[in-house]
C-alpha cells in the first residue's frame, strides 16, 4: 500500500496512531494502578488463606489437646487399674480420628516400682487396627526422649517436634504431651496423643491460594513439618533452604517464624518474584504460604493479552473502517479529480459528478462546475478571437505582400551604376519605403520612414509612395517634388502622421546629384577612395507635418566610384537586449571597411548582417531599410 498516494490510508493511519497512543496511555495508567491493587488483594487473599488454615489446624490441635486434657482426672483416679489405663489410651485413639496413638508414660519406678510403664495404643501402619502395647524398655528409654523429657522439664504441655517413631506407631508423628501431676503437683508421668504428619502434609499441601503456591509448616527447631517436597520434611530446616537462596529475606523470615511472629515478606525464590505470608500456630509451630507473583499476575497477563489482542483487532478494524469511510466520503474528490483530468485533457464537456450533501464537497463540485463553464466560455471566446486573429493575420500577410509589391524589385542593370535596396519591416507591414525611377540618364531615388509602425504606417507609406510616383513623374525640381508631396500628405492628415525621407536625382552622365532631405537621417557617402562620411544636408522638416513648407534642395557632384548608402533609423537605432544601439559611428566604421567594388546587393546584405550580428538575436524594434547606390 502506497501511503503517500492514499489520502484515506494516511488519514486512517493518523487516526490509528492517535487512538493507539491514547489507548497505550490509558493501559499504562490502568496497569500501574491495577498492579498495585492486585498485589494488595493477593496479599490479603493469601493472608486470609493463612488465617483460615491456621484456624483449621488449631481446631485439630485443640481437639487433640482436649482429648488428652479432659481425661487427666480419669487417669489420676484410676492409677491402680492397668487395664483401665490401656482402655483410656484406646478410647483416646478411637474417639479422635486425628489421633493415631496415645500413651500414658509413667516416671521410672513410679508405677508399681517398674522402671518403665507406659500403656500405649496406636493404629498400625499396615493393618490399620488398634493395638496396645507397653512402650518402655531398655531399647526404648522413653524418659530420655523429647516427647517425655521436654514437657517434664518444662512442667507444661508440649507438642514435640516431628519425629519418626520406630518404637511404637512406626509413623512420622508429632506428640502432644501433657504432664500428669499428683496431688502435690509432682510430675508422675506424661500423657500423650500422636498425630500423623502424613495426614498433616496432605492437608497442608492442599492449601494453594494460587496455582504454584505452596504451604509449609515448621516446628520450633526450624525443621519442616510439612512441605510440598516430602524429602525436606524432617530432614531440612527453613534455614538449610534459606542458606542456598541468594535473597537473605528468606533467612530473616525463618527467624521471624521461629519467634512466633506474623508477617508478610517479598523475596526472590529461585529468581521468581514471590512473597510469603506467615503466622504462628498455637502449639509453637509456624505456617507460611509462599506465592509467586507470576501466578497472581498470570490471569491478569492472560486478560491483558486478551485485551491487547482485542484492542489490536479493534484498531485494525477501526483502521479498515476508517479508511473505507474516508474513501467513501472522499470518493467525490476522486471523481472530481478524474473529471478535472478529463477536462485538462481537452474534454471540456466532461461530466462532473453530482453530490447530495451540502458541505465542502458540494462547494468544491460547484466550483469545478463553475470552472468548467468558465473554461468553456473562454475557449469559445478564444476560438472566435483566434479565428479573427487568423483572418487578421492573413489579411496582414496579404497587405505585406501588397506593400512589398509596391517597392520596386527590378533594380537597374547598368554598367555605370549598381543599385539595390531592401526593407525588413519590424511587423507584418511597415512604414519604411524606398523607390527609384530611371528617366533617361537621370536616376530618381528615395528612402523614407513613416512615423509609427504597422498598418497605419504602411497605409501612409503607400500614400507617400504613390504621391512620389505621381509627382516625381512631372519632371519638377527636387525641392518642388518634395513640397508637393508634403502638401499632398498634409491634406486630410488627421492622424498627424508624417514621413522622413531622402530623395535625390543623380545624373548618371555627370555625377551631379540634386537631393532634398525631409527630416531623414543623413546618408552615408563613401568616396572612391573608400572614405566614408555623412552627406551634409539641410534638415528641412518631415513631410506631412506642415502644408506649404518651403523645402530646399541641394546639389553635389559625385566622383565616379562613389557609393551612397541610404537607410532608415531602424539601422542606427537597432538595439541589443541591453538597450545599446547600433549607432552612426558603427555605421561609418562599417562603411569604411566596405570594399569599394562590392556590389550594392552585397553591400546591403552585408550591412543588414552586420546589424543583425550586433543585435545578437534581440527583437527587431523598428523597420529597417537599406539602399546602396554605387556610381561607377
Amino acid at each position: 500500500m502506497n501511503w503517500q498516494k492514499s489520502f484515506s490510508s494516511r488519514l486512517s493511519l493518523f487516526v490509528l496512531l492517535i487512538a493507539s497512543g491514547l489507548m497505550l496511555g490509558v493501559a499504562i495508567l490502568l496497569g500501574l494502578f491495577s498492579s498495585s491493587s492486585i498485589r494488595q488483594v493477593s496479599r490479603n487473599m493469601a493472608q486470609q488463606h493463612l488465617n483460615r488454615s491456621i484456624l483449621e489446624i488449631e481446631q485439630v490441635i485443640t481437639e487433640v489437646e482436649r482429648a488428652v486434657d479432659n481425661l487427666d482426672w480419669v487417669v489420676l483416679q484410676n492409677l491402680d487399674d492397668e487395664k483401665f489405663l490401656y482402655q483410656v489410651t484406646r478410647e483416646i485413639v478411637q474417639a479422635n480420628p486425628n489421633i493415631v496413638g496415645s500413651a500414658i508414660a509413667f516416671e521410672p519406678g513410679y508405677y508399681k516400682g517398674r522402671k518403665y510403664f507406659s500403656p500405649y495404643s496406636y493404629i498400625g501402619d499396615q493393618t490399620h487396627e488398634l493395638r496396645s502395647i507397653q512402650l518402655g524398655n531398655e531399647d526404648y528409654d522413653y524418659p530420655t526422649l523429647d516427647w517425655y523429657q521436654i514437657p517434664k522439664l518444662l512442667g507444661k504441655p508440649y507438642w514435640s517436634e516431628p519425629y519418626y517413631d520406630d518404637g511404637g506407631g512406626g509413623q512420622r508423628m508429632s506428640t502432644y504431651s501433657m504432664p500428669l501431676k499428683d496431688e502435690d503437683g509432682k510430675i508422675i508421668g506424661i500423657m500423650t496423643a500422636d498425630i500423623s504428619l502424613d495426614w498433616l502434609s496432605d492437608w497442608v499441601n492442599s492449601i494453594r491460594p494460587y496455582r504454584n503456591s505452596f504451604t509449609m509448616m515448621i516446628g520450633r527447631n526450624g525443621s519442616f513439618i510439612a512441605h510440598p517436597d516430602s524429602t525436606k520434611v524432617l530432614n531440612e530446616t527453613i534455614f538449610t533452604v534459606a542458606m542456598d537462596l541468594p535473597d537473605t529475606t528468606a533467612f530473616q523470615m525463618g527467624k521471624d517464624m521461629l519467634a512466633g511472629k506474623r508477617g508478610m515478606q517479598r523475596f526472590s525464590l529461585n529468581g521468581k518474584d514471590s512473597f510469603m505470608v506467615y503466622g504462628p500456630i498455637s502449639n509453637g509451630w509456624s505456617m507460611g504460604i509462599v506465592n509467586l507473583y507470576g501466578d497472581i499476575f498470570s490471569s491478569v497477563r492472560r486478560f491483558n493479552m486478551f485485551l491487547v489482542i482485542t484492542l489490536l483487532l479493534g484498531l485494525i478494524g477501526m483502521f479498515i473502517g476508517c479508511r473505507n469511510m474516508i474513501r467513501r466520503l472522499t470518493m467525490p474528490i476522486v471523481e472530481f479529480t478524474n473529471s478535472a483530468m478529463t477536462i485538462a485533457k481537452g474534454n471540456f464537456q466532461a461530466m462532473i459528478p453530482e453530490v447530495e450533501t451540502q458541505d465542502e464537497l458540494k462547494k468544491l463540485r460547484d466550483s469545478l462546475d463553475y470552472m468548467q463553464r468558465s473554461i468553456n466560455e473562454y475557449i469559445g471566446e478564444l476560438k472566435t478571437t483566434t479565428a479573427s486573429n487568423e483572418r487578421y493575420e492573413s489579411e496582414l500577410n496579404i497587405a505585406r505582400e501588397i506593400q512589398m509589391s509596391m517597392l520596386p524589385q527590378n533594380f537597374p542593370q547598368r554598367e555605370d551604376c549598381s543599385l539595390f535596396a531592401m526593407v525588413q519591416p519590424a511587423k507584418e507591414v511597415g512604414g519604411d519605403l524606398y523607390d527609384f525611377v530611371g528617366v533617361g540618364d537621370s536616376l530618381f531615388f528615395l528612402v523614407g520612414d513613416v512615423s509609427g509602425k504597422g498598418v497605419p504606417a504602411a497605409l501612409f507609406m503607400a500614400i507617400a509612395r504613390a504621391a512620389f510616383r505621381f509627382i516625381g513623374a512631372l519632371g519638377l525640381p527636387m525641392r518642388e517634388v518634395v513640397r508637393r508631396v508634403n502638401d499632398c500628405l498634409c491634406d486630410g492628415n488627421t492622424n498627424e502622421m508624417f514621413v522622413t525621407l531622402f530623395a535625390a536625382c543623380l545624373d548618371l552622365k555627370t555625377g551631379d546629384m540634386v537631393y532634398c532631405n525631409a527630416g531623414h537621417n543623413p546618408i552615408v557617402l563613401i568616396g572612391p577612395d573608400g572614405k566614408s562620411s555623412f552627406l551634409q544636408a539641410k534638415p528641412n522638416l518631415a513631410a506631412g507635418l506642415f502644408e506649404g513648407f518651403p523645402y530646399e534642395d541641394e546639389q553635389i557632384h559625385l566622383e565616379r566610384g562613389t557609393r551612397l548608402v541610404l537607410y532608415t533609423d531602424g539601422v542606427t537605432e537597432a538595439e541589443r537586449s541591453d538597450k545599446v544601439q547600433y549607432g552612426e559611428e558603427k555605421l561609418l566604421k562599417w562603411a569604411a571597411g566596405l570594399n569599394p567594388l562590392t556590389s550594392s546587393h552585397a553591400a546591403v546584405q552585408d550591412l543588414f548582417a552586420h546589424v543583425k550580428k550586433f543585435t545578437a538575436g534581440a527583437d527587431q524594434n523598428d523597420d529597417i531599410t537599406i539602399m546602396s547606390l554605387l556610381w561607377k
Partner: protein
Amino acid sequence: MKRLLTAAAFLLFAFASLPAQEVITFMPQWLPQTQFAGYYVALEKGFYAEEGLDVIIDHFGGSSTETALAKIEHRQIDIITTQLISAMIERDKGMRLVNVLQTSQVNGLMCAAHFPVKDPQALNGARVGRWKVGFGEVCDLFCYKNQLQVNWIPYIQGINLYVAGAVDALLCYSYSEYLQLVLATGGIPEDYLIRFSEFGLDFPEDGLYVTEKYYKDNKEKVDKFVRASRRGWDYAREHREEALEISLKMMNDFNVATSRKLQEMMLDEVLRLQVNPVTGVADFAPVSRGVFDALNVSLQEAGILKSTIQYEEMIR
C-alpha cells in the same frame, strides 16, 4: 563365543589375582554421618578391598544404648571409633583399648546456652543437656576447673531440649549438634557459646581403637585398615562433594533422615578438626605424650580416672 571365553578367562584371572579377603567389622561411635566420611569413602572406593579387607560397617542406631564401646567390649565388633578420653576411661575400667589412628587433632566440644556464658560461672547451677551415652568428659574437666555445679540432663535425641527451652544449655559438638542448632535457630550469638578448646582443654577426640588382644592377634590386618582409612580421609578431603554423596548414600542405607546442608557443613568441620594445629596439615599425628600426660593428670584430678593410663600401652 571367542569373546565370551576371553571374558571368562579374564574374570578367572582377576579373581585369582585378588588377595584373600579378610573380614573385619567396624563401628563408628554414632549414627551414620559425614563425621565418618573417610571410612565410607575407603569402603566405597575399594581402598579396604585393595588391602585385602572385607570391611563390614555397623552403626550405633536409634535409641539403642548398645554403643560401639559396648560392642567392642563384648567382642561383637573388631574396630571402633571413639574419643581419646572415652578410650582412656574404658581402659581405666579394664577394657584395654589401643589407639591405632588419631584422626581428630582439635577438640570440638562446645556448650550452647540461652544466655551469655563467657564467664564460666554463668553455667553454675544450670540445667545442661548432655548425651546419655557419654562424651562430655571435657566439660566435666571444665566444671571441675571452674568449680561448677551443673544439673546434667541426659538425652538421646538431638537439640530439641535446647530449642524448647527445657534446658539452659546444651553440650554439643562443633561438627554436629552445634550445626544443627545453627540450622534450627538461624544462629546463636557467639557470647552464648563456650568452645572448651579455648579454655586449655584442647584434647584430641576421634580415633580408631581396637582391643589390645585384637591388635596383638591381627596387627597386620589392623595396619591395613588404618592405611586404607587414612586414604579414605585423604580422598574425602580432596573430593568433598563425592565424599558427601557417599556418606549420604550410607545414611540412606541406614534409614537416617538428615539434611544435605548439615552433612556438608559437618564434613567441612570434621576435616577442619583433623588439621594438626602444629603442622598445619592433616597428618593424623598420634597424640603427643605431653597432651596424653596432661590429660591423665586432669582426668585423675577430676576423679574421672582412677589410675594413670600408660602412653606406650595405648598409643600405637
